[in-house]
Structures are given as structure tokens and as C-alpha cells.
């Protein structure tokens, strides 16, 4: 108190002294301003010397909430005073206050015990989160990272099938990003994502290889490679199927179809009626059969029947019944080529109403095939279109969206109906590619499905080295043993779907891994490097953490921040500034008036 008093007295004396000096001065301009400055300066001086404080409230550090930092966290969202942990060395280096822990158990077993854990950043993996079961967890996610947001491609392709890679890319870079699909170090397709945009992309390529293939997806920003991801897929050779062609008269369409299928190793039998009770029979890669009468046993030998409508309609009731039974029960496929047959209704035709448009000239139009980006070459068509119906799917259309081929389910099998009757002109013109695409589409859609085989699935997206991967085998027979890279694993049968066996595996190396089961089957699956697909992994982690937090039984209870009343000192800097300003004014005033 003495100090305070003495300071005040000295300051009053100073004030009086300076005030007297100013009043005494001959030049009396701006006297009031000068006096004000003196008062301010002396007051500031006094405040500097005296300790000033006020009472206020500050939030209290909550020692019972642990903050767990994961990649991508924001420093501003870390609450003051709470204990901060991290599993990542890099984060610890970056943010020194964080305490590096080796496992999450250190959090759960900590003394004094943490009441809840707050996760910042992209979150944790599923297997890591499981360790935090017994403690309430809240989560503040980081914004979505730049890069690939989602991606999809078929894991298996058939020879001659195009690879279609679709996904979404978020570009936070300052410049446009170019996505390049590379196969065997050759650029196959590319797309540019503009700067600051999130957009869907689609890349396509026709693979030339067979077997296990790894394509590369590069994201380039200028000359910098942002990411180089592996796109593993298996390309399987096609399996020849057996085809039966039925026609009411010999025609070019059947002849070209038979030759094309036969030359590619498919088994073809063709029957064309040429006169009363007479039919010409042709066989390609097939032993002679009795085609006189269509029976269930005969149809059992074929995977798909291609016939013109009049030929199919002229079957005897017994034959028709056999066909219907094979289709609905056994999954046989029928491709029906429309022609000017009689009016008699048939179950084959009932789903496909046909409209004929009156046009003077022969129509020649490019066709659009299902799932194909490009149009085919022009083809002469009859102006006969299939009307839309529920439960049918259009396969081939023209540019005006007139349906020229459509398919529908018939029990276990499929029916494909088409009004295209001159596709052989493509072959005559040497256009094998379009011809093959069209007929492959129609036959693929209709052909009898292969008998069920075992199916190998990798349930964890983008498996990594030294991280658990969930592998599923779908098999109608229980596998005696499953071995991965000749190491036996122990599968568990799925309780809900009895034909699934799941196992967990920790891959030791990157690249293709072999899985074998029960001496019957084998499959290959791919393990990525740790760095690959980083943006997707982050998103996956964030999503997993979100789900975990949403589903946890113990919700965190603390909603209000605890506050504490404390004495807060006023910062001296303000008084320094006032003193400086006043003195400056006084000095400048004197300097420039004289």
C-alpha cells in the first residue's frame, strides 16, 4: 500500500510540475490539448508502476478428457489444458504438446482415469477403435482430403471386355489435375479435373492382356505426381458355349453367326427348314445330333437358342413345352429374332410389343449398345421398334432411343428379343468389331449361367501390409482348409449366410497373394503398399470412426464447460502505448510550432 501511495503522490507532484510548466509557456496555443496529454502521460506512468487487475472467469482445463490427435487434425480445435495424445510420431514432432503413446490401451488404462476421449483428425481404423469400447468417444472430423473420393472397377473381366473405371475426384490443388490410366506403362485414357472442383470421372480401356494385370492410375498436377495407385484386376479367358440356331428358312444372318461363333471355338448347331418336313442341318465343333424334334434332353445340351420368331412359333406344342420348361426351370436363354410371322401369340413375344413405323427409305443408323460409350457403325435396320414395357431392359437402341433389342427374365432363364435382321452386312463390310460387340452383348445377356463355382472376396477395401484383411470365401461346399500363400488360415462360417466362410489375414508382402482352398479352387488377391490410396483410406477411417461414435453405448455426458473465477492482470502494454502517444504529441507540438 505504501508503494501505491508513494507512486500516486509522486505522480501528482509530477502532474502539477508539468502542468505549471505548460501554463507558464508564452505560446498558449493548444494549451488544453497539452494539458490533456500531460494528464494522460502521468496517469499512464502511474498505471505502469501500479499493479492493476480485475476479476474474470476462465474455462478450467478438463483433465478428465483425453484428446487423441490423428492425421489431419486442426490445431485450433484442441481444447486448452486437456491432456493430448497421439499414436503418430510425425504428429508428435509437429505438435510437441502431444504425448506419444504406443497403443490405445495406454489411454484406457491411464491413471487418473480419463472420463472420455475426443478424437481429432481423420480418425482410427476399425480394429483400433474396438480397443476404445469401454470409454465414451467423441469425434471432430477433419475436412475431406484432396484426391480420389471414391472409385470402382470390376475385379474380374472377360477377354475382350472393356475396363471401365469410375470414381469421384476432389481437387484442392491450385491447378487442374490430370488423371491418367496406364497399362503396361502406356497411357490408355485420361481425364482432367479442374482446379477447386469435385467431379465424377470415368476412364476406359480395352485390355490386351490376360491373367493378372495391374493398371496404374496416376494423378498429375503439372509435372508433380500426386498419387500413383495400382488397379489390380484379373482378365479371364472366355468359355465357349453351345448355341442352337433355329430358322424358318436358310438366311444370311444365321450363316454368318454360325461361322463367327464356330471360328471362335464355340459349338453351334443350326436347323433351317427348307421344305415340307425337310430341314438343313449344320454343325460346327459339334457331333451330329437329332435336331428333328426339340426335346428337353436336346435343349439341355445348349446354353442359348437363337431363332426367328416364325421358327419358334412353328414348334409343336410338345416342343414348345420343352423349351419353356428349359428356360424357366433350367435357365436356358433364348434370343428371338423378330420377323413377319403369323399373328398367333406366343409367350416368347408377350413382353415385347413391336411397332412398325412407315418409312419410305431403307433406314441406316448407328446403334448404341448397352454399357458402351461409343456408337457402332451404321447398320441397315427395318423400321420396327420394340415398345417399352415394365420388367424389360433395353440392350440396343438407335440415336432416337428406339429400342431394337431388349431382354426380360423368364423364370430362371432370360429372353432377348431383337428386330435386327441385317447384322451380317457388318461382316460383309469387314466390321468385325461391331458385329462381335453386338452379338456378344445379346448372347452374354441370355446365355445359361455357369454352374455355381466358389467365389473369393476381399472384404477390406485396399488391403495393406501388416494390417488385418477380412477375406471371404463363398462356396456351396464347406472348404476343408484355406491356405493363403501356403499358410493355413482358420475360417469361420457366417451364421446368417451359411455358404460364407470368413477369415482374417495379415499380409506380409505386397503384390498378388494366392489363396487356395480344399484342393479345389484358387484365387488371387492384391495387397497395396502402405502409401497407396491415402485419400480413400482417410475417408474410410473418418467414416468408420463416425459409425463407431454413433453406435457406441456410452455417450459422453459432459456438455458444459467448467468455469472458474480468477483475478486477471491488465496487460501493461496499453499504458506504455498511452504514455508514448502523449509524449510524442508533446514533443512534436513543441518542435513544429517553434
Amino acid at each position: 500500500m505504501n508503494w501505491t501511495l508513494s507512486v500516486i503522490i509522486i505522480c501528482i507532484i509530477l502532474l502539477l510540475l508539468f502542468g505549471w510548466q505548460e501554463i507558464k509557456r508564452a505560446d498558449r496555443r493548444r494549451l488544453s490539448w497539452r494539458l490533456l496529454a500531460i494528464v494522460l502521460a502521468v496517469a499512464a506512468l502511474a498505471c505502469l508502476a501500479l499493479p492493476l487487475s480485475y476479476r474474470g472467469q476462465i474455462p478450467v482445463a478438463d483433465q478428465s478428457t483425453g484428446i487423441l490427435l490423428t492425421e489431419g487434425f486442426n490445431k485450433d480445435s484442441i481444447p486448452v489444458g486437456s491432456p493430448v495424445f497421439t499414436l503418430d510420431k510425425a504428429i508428435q514432432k509437429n505438435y510437441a504438446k502431444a504425448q506419444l503413446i504406443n497403443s490405445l490401451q495406454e489411454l484406457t488404462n491411464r491413471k487418473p482415469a480419463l472420463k472420455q476421449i475426443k478424437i481429432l483428425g481423420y480418425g482410427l481404423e476399425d480394429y483400433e477403435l474396438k480397443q476404445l469400447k469401454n470409454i465414451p468417444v467423441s469425434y471432430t472430423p477433419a475436412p475431406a482430403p484432396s484426391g480420389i473420393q471414391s472409385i470402382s472397377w470390376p475385379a474380374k473381366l472377360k477377354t475382350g471386355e472393356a475396363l471401365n473405371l469410375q470414381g469421384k475426384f476432389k481437387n484442392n490443388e491450385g491447378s487442374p489435375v490430370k488423371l491418367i490410366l496406364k497399362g503396361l506403362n502406356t497411357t490408355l485414357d485420361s481425364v482432367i479435373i479442374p482446379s477447386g472442383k469435385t467431379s465424377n470421372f470415368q476412364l476406359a480401356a480395352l485390355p490386351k492382356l490376360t491373367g493378372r494385370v495391374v493398371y496404374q492410375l496416376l494423378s498429375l498436377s503439372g509435372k508433380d505426381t500426386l498419387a500413383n495407385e495400382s488397379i489390380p484386376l484379373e482378365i479371364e479367358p472366355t468359355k465357349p458355349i453351345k448355341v442352337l440356331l433355329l430358322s424358318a428358312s436358310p438366311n444370311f444372318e444365321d450363316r454368318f453367326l454360325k461361322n463367327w461363333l464356330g471360328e471362335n471355338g464355340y459349338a453351334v448347331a443350326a436347323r433351317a427348314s427348307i421344305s415340307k418336313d425337310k430341314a438343313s442341318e449344320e454343325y460346327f465343333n459339334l457331333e451330329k445330333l437329332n435336331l428333328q424334334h426339340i426335346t428337353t434332353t436336346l435343349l439341355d445340351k445348349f446354353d442359348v437358342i437363337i431363332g426367328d420368331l416364325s421358327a419358334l412359333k412353328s414348334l409343336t406344342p410338345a416342343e414348345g413345352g420343352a423349351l419353356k420348361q428349359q428356360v424357366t426351370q433350367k435357365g436356358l436363354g433364348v434370343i428371338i429374332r423378330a420377323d413377319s410371322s403369323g399373328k398367333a401369340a406366343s409367350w416368347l413375344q408377350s413382353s415385347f410389343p413391336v411397332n412398325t413405323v412407315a418409312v419410305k427409305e431403307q433406314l441406316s443408323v448407328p446403334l448404341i449398345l448397352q454399357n458402351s460409350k461409343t456408337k457402332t457403325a451404321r447398320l441397315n435396320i427395318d423400321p420396327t421398334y420394340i415398345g417399352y414395357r415394365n420388367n424389360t431392359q433395353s440392350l440396343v437402341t438407335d440415336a432416337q432411343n428406339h429400342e431394337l433389342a431388349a431382354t426380360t427374365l423368364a423364370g430362371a432363364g432370360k429372353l432377348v428379343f431383337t428386330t435386327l435382321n441385317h447384322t451380317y452386312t457388318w461382316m460383309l463390310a469387314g466390321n468385325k468389331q461391331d458385329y462381335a460387340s453386338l452379338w456378344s452383348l445379346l448372347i452374354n445377356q441370355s446365355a445359361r449361367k455357369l454352374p455355381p463355382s466358389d467365389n473369393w472376396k476381399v472384404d477390406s477395401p485396399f488391403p495393406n501390409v501388416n494390417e488385418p484383411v477380412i477375406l471371404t470365401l463363398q462356396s456351396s461346399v464347406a472348404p476343408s482348409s484355406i491356405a493363403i500363400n501356403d499358410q493355413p488360415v482358420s475360417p469361420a462360417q457366417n451364421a446368417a449366410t451359411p455358404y460364407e466362410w470368413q477369415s482374417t489375414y495379415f499380409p506380409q508382402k505386397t503384390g498378388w497373394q494366392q489363396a487356395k482352398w480344399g484342393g479345389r479352387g484358387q484365387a488371387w488377391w492384391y495387397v497395396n503398399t502402405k502409401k497407396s490410396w491415402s485419400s480413400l483410406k482417410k475417408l474410410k477411417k473418418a467414416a468408420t470412426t463416425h459409425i463407431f461414435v454413433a453406435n457406441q453405448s456410452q455417450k459422453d455426458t459432459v456438455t458444459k464447460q467448467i468455469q472458474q473465477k480468477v483475478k486477471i492482470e491488465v496487460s501493461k502494454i496499453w499504458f506504455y502505448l498511452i504514455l508514448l502517444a502523449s509524449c510524442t504529441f508533446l514533443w512534436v507540438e513543441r518542435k513544429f510550432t517553434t
Partner: protein
Amino acid sequence: MMVQEGAQKIQALRQRWISLQLLTDTLKAAGIAILVGCILHYLLGLSMWWALGVFIIACIVIFAINHPWKLTLQSVCSSLNLHYPQLEESSELVLKPVASLNLLEQLQLHKVEQALQTVPAQPPGFNARLQKASLFLLLTLAASLAIAKTHQRWNLSKPSQHNNAVTNGSTNAPPEKTLPQVDGVALTITPPAYTGKGQRTQDKFTIMAEEGAVATWKITTNVPIGKTWLIFNGHERMPLTGANATEWHASKAISKPGFYQVSIDGKLSDLYQIQVIKDALPVIRIKTPKQYTHIDAGEAQRVTINTTVTDDYGLSDAHIFATVAKGSGEAVKFKDTSFAFNTPVTGGKTYNLQRTIDLPKLGMEPGDELYFYIQAQDNHQQKTRTDVLIVSIQDTAQLLSMDGIVAAANIKPEFFRSERQIILDTEKLLKDKDSISATVFKNRCNDVGADQKMLRLRYGKFLGEEDESGQEADGNEDVGKAENFGNAKVVMDAYTDKHDNAEDATFLEPAAKAQLKATLNEMWKAELRLRLYKPQEALPFEYKALRLLKDLQQKSRSFVAKTSYNPPPTKPEKRLSGDLSKIGQPINSQNAKAPADQFVSLKKAAMVLEQSRHQAISPADKQVLQIAAQQLAAKATAQPGTYLKAVSAIRRILATPASIRNADRAVVEKAIQASLPGSKTTPSPMASSPDMGLGQRYYKNLNR
């Protein structure tokens, strides 16, 4: 004496001053010349000699400005006075004759002469000027040096694009790796005679030679070596013969592209490329005539052939081969002839060739046709020939014949006859011209012209052209009559447009109409000539009109377009009811294996390479790569430019399978991708899921 000495001193000073001034001016000029010369040389690419010209010009200009030789003794003196106080402002006294001086002046003269001896030889302030000039020279030298340097650097940075653009030149190729024993190679390429090029020598192994060239290797080694081979395309071995143990020779004719290696004592070098420049065929461009030329009656019966022939090395021959077809139907006769061009072809690269063929000289008559083509041959005995061109002379007799007219769709026979009649009349008139008087000739000519006009007007009607007969009031006469007053029918008939009238509707198509119009045009031209009493000139137009009319006749024939055809289904009930039981059924059976994939090993190799990123190559994998290496080598024989790098890379991979370089893998993968054909699309069934028949059961229960 003293006086003279003084004057001489001044003289000497003047001489010296002048020469020093010249020196500084020359320095300045040299500076300018160096700078300008440098700019001209490096930026505009002119010769350095231009600098000399610039120097001379600069000298002249500077001298002209400064006039150093105009320095007078007086000015020397005044300058001396100004700078040397010991002369006491009176050095001019030295120049004056002694006799004219008064006493005072003489005294002063003595003093001055003495002082003159101490005056330095250099002009006052000269040092500064000399320094400035030399500084200027130094600066320009520095500037020109800078220009030279930047130009050099610019040139160095530029060739990188240049290199990319021109990859074929062996000089631009990247440096080759040679075996350590090889000291150097002198590869002499002797191009074949047809190219007309001299032999050239290079110090690189990569060969780019004309087809049929002979390459001679002269390899010097730094150590004596034993056996040396050149291995072509991986299997063909050619020994090198050694003059001594360090100098080796070999020679080979280059006819195919491929690659080779040097093998010294069993050690193999890098692969070197052999590229072959094929001799291109001669190119013939015909300017005239057109593919099909029709010479109408009355036109000059000759054809001018104008053509350009080029070849990459040289042409040895060019000829016109012609065939004349005479007669028609079964009596047609052919006669072959050949012509040389007006200019002889003797080994040059480009020729503009002309030749005029006079058709009557070939014995051609109206109705005959001339077929010809041009053939050129280059120094390498390669020949090219053009398409066949046709020239035909119109057959007037054929045109005038009545055949076809009677048979064809006959729309307006009388008019066709008329045009023919007009031609006959005109020809008769021409024949009679000499035997009849001028007035009669003119009258008849006019009559024919009138006929032509009538005909033209008749045809004009088909086109809906205006009637030129001048009887416009024709149709309206009835209206004017008193008895028709108020007769609505007559009035309507006169003043309405009866466009519903079937007879008025034109039955000609637009194309036919256009041709008819062209016919009328020809008729109009013919009439003009006839009216001017020039029947000879009218004749071609008459013929042309007739020809167009005949074409018009042909057009009325109908045309059926080709369409796709699908046979209708056979209807047994409509067939004849004969007994077919003994007729067998056609049964056709054939077998074809799906073609084996020739590229299996390359596809496998791609898989092995991919796997090698993650694990070491096994011996089985190595074998796969070896087979792929052979296939790539076979490809490289045909296209060394594309595949040679890959062959070297795959060999390096095979040599050190434990540590594969990513660059090598990339090159091989790229080559495999390039060599594989696109895969064929074939149908394949979809797989069903192993659901233990759940789906089946579901369907069954649904249908129950």
C-alpha cells in the same frame, strides 16, 4: 634559324595532333564495327566480313564529322596559347615572317621559341579523349562477347526440341555405349549407285542407310583382341577380319532393317540399330487432260498432256502408252503406240513434261477412243503408272442415227427430229456454200436460225418459259366481245390462273429441268451463230444440244436401288404336295479350333514383370522372359526403331534378375503393349453365385 625551328615545331605538332586524332577516331570506328558486326553475325546470321564494311563506313562518317586534317597552324597556335601560359599568348609570332616583325615582337619571338621547346608533343586534353575512345572500344568488345555467349547458350537450349523433332539423324542420337576395348569405329556407308550419293563415314555404330547400301566397319581397339564378330538380329554372325590385333574390318550390304551387336572375345556390346531408307516410287501428277475428255464435233481434235513427275533420287524414263480403239461393237480394233515427252528424262529429280497428241495423225476418226497412261521409271528400275485416261471424239453419225430414239421412252419425238434436221440443214448449207450466191446463203442461214428459234421456244414451254410469239392478247379476245358481257365463265377463264389443270403441271424432275435449260442455252447459241451467217460456228452448239437431248432421253429410265434382303419363311402348306420322303436332308458338319494365341508368352512376360516388383524372379519366370525376349528380338528385326530399346532392356533384366531397374521394366512393358493386338470380343456366359440353391428354392416357392 630559330624562327624556322619554331615554325617547324608548330608544323610537327600539327602533324602529330592530326595523327593522334585519327587514332582516336579509328578506335571509335572499330568499336562500332565490332558491335554492329556481332549483332549482324549472331542475330541475323550474316558473315563476320560485314564488320569490315561497317568499320570502313564508320571511319568515313567519323572523319567527315571531325575533319582531323583541317586542323590549321593557326588553331594549333591558339590552342597552345590557351593551354601553356609560358607562351604568353604569342605563339602565332612564330608563323609570321621575321621581317614583318617589329622589335617588340622579335623579342617576344625569342622568348616564345624558347618556351616552345618545352611544350609536350601531345595535344592538351588528348589523354582524356584517348581514354574515352579506348573505354568505348572495351565496352563494345564486352557487349559483343556477351551477345556471342547468350547466343551460344540459346543455341544450346534450342536443339533439345530440334532433337525430338528429328530422331532419325544418327548425329542427333544419344551417345552410344561401346565395349571398353573399342577405341573407335569408322563406319563407311556406300550408298547404291541409284541414289547418286557419295560415300560417307561416321564414328557411330547406329546405321541409317539407303536400301542396298554397303556398310564397312573399321574398328580400332585399344588392346589387342582375339576373335571379333558382328552379330546381326541376334543370330547372324559375321567375323571381322583383322589387319593386326587392334584393327578389324568387315563389310556388309544393308538391305533390311534390324539391329546388330559387336562381340569381342565373347563379350557383347549394346544393340545398335540398322535403319533402311527405302527408295520411294516415282510420283506422277497429271495436270491435263481430265480423266475423261470428250471432243465435240468442231473442236480441235488434239489432246495436250501436261504432267509433273518427281522421284526422291532420280528419274530415268517417262513415257506415254496409248491404245486407240476404233470401231464399235464386235468390229472394235485396238492399236498400241507409245510416245516420248517433248523433254527427255535424264536422271533429274523433277520434270514438268508436255506432249501434244494430234488424234487424226493416229488415224482416229469420230467415234474412236484413245486410252493412255503415263509410266515413269526411276534410277532404281522402279516403275509407276497412272490410271488410264480416256479421250473420245464425238461420233456425229451415231448421234444422228435413229436407233434408240424409236425404242426409248419417247416424250417429244418431233422436236428431237427437228434438232437433227437443223444439223443436217446446216451441214447441207455448208456443203452448198460455194455453189450458191451470198444472198441465198444468207437467206437459208437465216431460215435455219428461225427453225432453231421455233424449236427453242417449243422446248421453253416445257420449262414454263414465256411465250415469245408476241400474241399476248390472244386469250382475252373473247372477253372483249359484246355478247360475253356479264358472262362470268368467260371472264373467269380469262383472268384466273388455272393451276389445277393437269396438262399444265410439269412432269419433269428438277435435274431434268436443269439439263433441258442447258439444252435451250446451246440452242440459243446456235441460233445466234446462224443469224450471224456463221453456220460453221453454229454446228458445235447444235451437236451439243442434240447430245444433251439424247442424255435426257436416257434419264427417263427407272433405277432400282440395292437393299438388304431377308428371305421370307418357307411355308410348307404352299409347297407342292409331291412325295419328298426319298429326298435326303442336307447335313453339313465342320470343325474349327479357336486360333491359338501367338502372344501368350508376351502376356505371361508382362505378368512376370508386374510380379517382379514385389518378389524375386523364379527360374520358371526367367524362362518366360527369355521366350519373350526372343519374340521381341524378332519384332526388332522388322522395326528396330520401336523395339530395339526393349530388347536391350529385357536382356539387361535377364542378366541381373535380382535387381531390375524400373526404367528397363517400363521400356519392356511399353514394347509388349505395342506388340500385342487388341483382344477379340467374344460372348461368355455369366457366373451364378454359390448360394446353395437359395435362389432356385425362392423361385419355386414363388410359383407355387
